């Protein structure tokens, strides 16, 4: 069986949904962050697949930017989570509820 565009799209849609589920269900900030990375990589896979099957390099260009931006986001994110952990000794979203109605 030949691997076609739709196979890539289905896999990336599954990855995206898994990532979204992870963000919604997890209560741990680090795990939520990992799930977010999964969602971004699902978008990357879609872009690369479209790029390959449309014979157009723009998609791959965006992928490079997404990888760079995701790295920056992780750096900031882990720094913030560590700073919060130092103050509150927790990485669970249930414990960070100072700001509420």
């Amino acid at each position, binding site marked *: 069986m030949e691997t076609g565009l739709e196979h890539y799209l289905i896999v990336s849609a599954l990855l995206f949904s898994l990532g979204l589920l992870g963000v919604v269900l997890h209560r741990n900030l680090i795990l939520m962050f990992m799930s977010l990375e999964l969602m971004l990589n699902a978008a990357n896979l879609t872009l690369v697949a479209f790029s390959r099957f449309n014979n157009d390099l723009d*998609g791959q260009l*965006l992928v490079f930017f997404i990888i760079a931006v995701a790295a920056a986001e992780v750096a900031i994110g882990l720094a*913030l989570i560590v700073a919060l952990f130092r103050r509150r000794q927790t990485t669970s979203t249930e414990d960070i509820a100072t700001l509420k109605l």
Partner: protein
Amino acid sequence: MNLSLCILEISVVFLGLAVLLLDLWTPPAGKRSLGYFAVAGLVLILGGSFLIEIPQTPETAFTGLFVHDGLALFFKRLFLLTAIGVLLLAREFAPRIPTGISEFYTITIFALSGMMFAASANHFVLAFVALELIAICFYILTGFLRHRTASLEAGVKYLILGALSSSFLVYGMALVYGTAGSMSLPEIAEATEATRTSPLFQLGMLLILVGLGFKIAVFPWQFWAPDVYQGAPAPITAFLAIGSKAAGFALLLRLNLSGLPMPADLLILIAAATILYGNLCALPQRNLKRLLGYSGIAHAGYLAMGLATGSQAGAEAILFYFGGYLFTAMAAFAVITIVSRETDTDDLSILYGLGKRSPLLALAMALAVVSLAGIPPLAGFFGKFLLFLAVLEQGPNFALHYLLAGVAIVGVAISIYYYFGIIRAMYWPRRTPLTSPIPTHLTLQIVIVISILGMLWLGMLPGYLVEIIDQSLNSL
């Protein structure tokens, strides 16, 4: 390739780097004054922007990624003015920042450059990178007060939800790119009818709307706004409320004007729900910044009305509204920054007796809330007036617009109640715990006086700004 088109952005980035470098040779006591240097630089760049003419037809650079036209130039001036005000507030705020005031200035300037690039984005790649530049700068700025749990929490919440929204945005971009075969907005707009009605394309556009809707904080993607507005340092809350929101609207307007409008019925529902949600939730609030957060959501709803019309009049109304909102929100946040200095809280009670403690600050705050409520003769009134006109104009084409205008009027009526609560706290407080006068630094007095004059000017003599907006939009 025409680098000279992005001269403003390049200057802003270099200014940010210059502040960072100067920090190395500045003694700790003088670091706070670097804010003046940054402001002077931005004033120069703003002045320089008036030497740039609006081109007859849009000009592009970087193989079509970057576009220079009237809309972009208008938003860039708006962002520059906002950043000047924010940096002056940040200088006032500096003693409350434990370390790294120079970095605070620099990152604010980098966020500004992201907004300016977003105003000129004509291609998914530039739009994505610009939005992420804004977002990442704001994650840092929101969590900048590391000794305050509220600030860190707001930073983490903004980070998680912001990253979630950008995954939606980028996945939507990927789907649109795959079906339309291009990432350039004008080329996507040329796609055939069959492509544009395909489910994958429409799902992609919907996901892009989710990503941008988060930026402008409209229902149902508004839940981050109150927490982040409350937790962030006051100058950054002002920057979020004006700059970040305007950047999202600049991109949505760009999509609209490129011929890729979001579905009107969906936008009408979003606008109506946002107006009601923002105004109703603002009613019981006791925290000033949180109250302004909810009021900011309501204002995003009013602005989304202009988007829902999809017409030139709607776009003009949005631009005018932002012009008025700039002065109004700047006045309100300047007062909050000054008044919260001694008490270090943002509770409504810090305003008690402000009418006696500092008549200038009380007047500025009173005019700001009157303008936010949309009562004549201030800027907020004329902005809302233009938005209502644009919506009613579309009524004959699509009857839901009448309903939207009705909901907006209900929203305005609700908002008068909580805005009046602020005025009552200042002039007729239940108790006055503090009676000492509040010293206000000269630069902030200037910011406040300019904001007051701006509100009055745009409210009573709106013709000049309307003419500028006409010129800006006619070049498209």
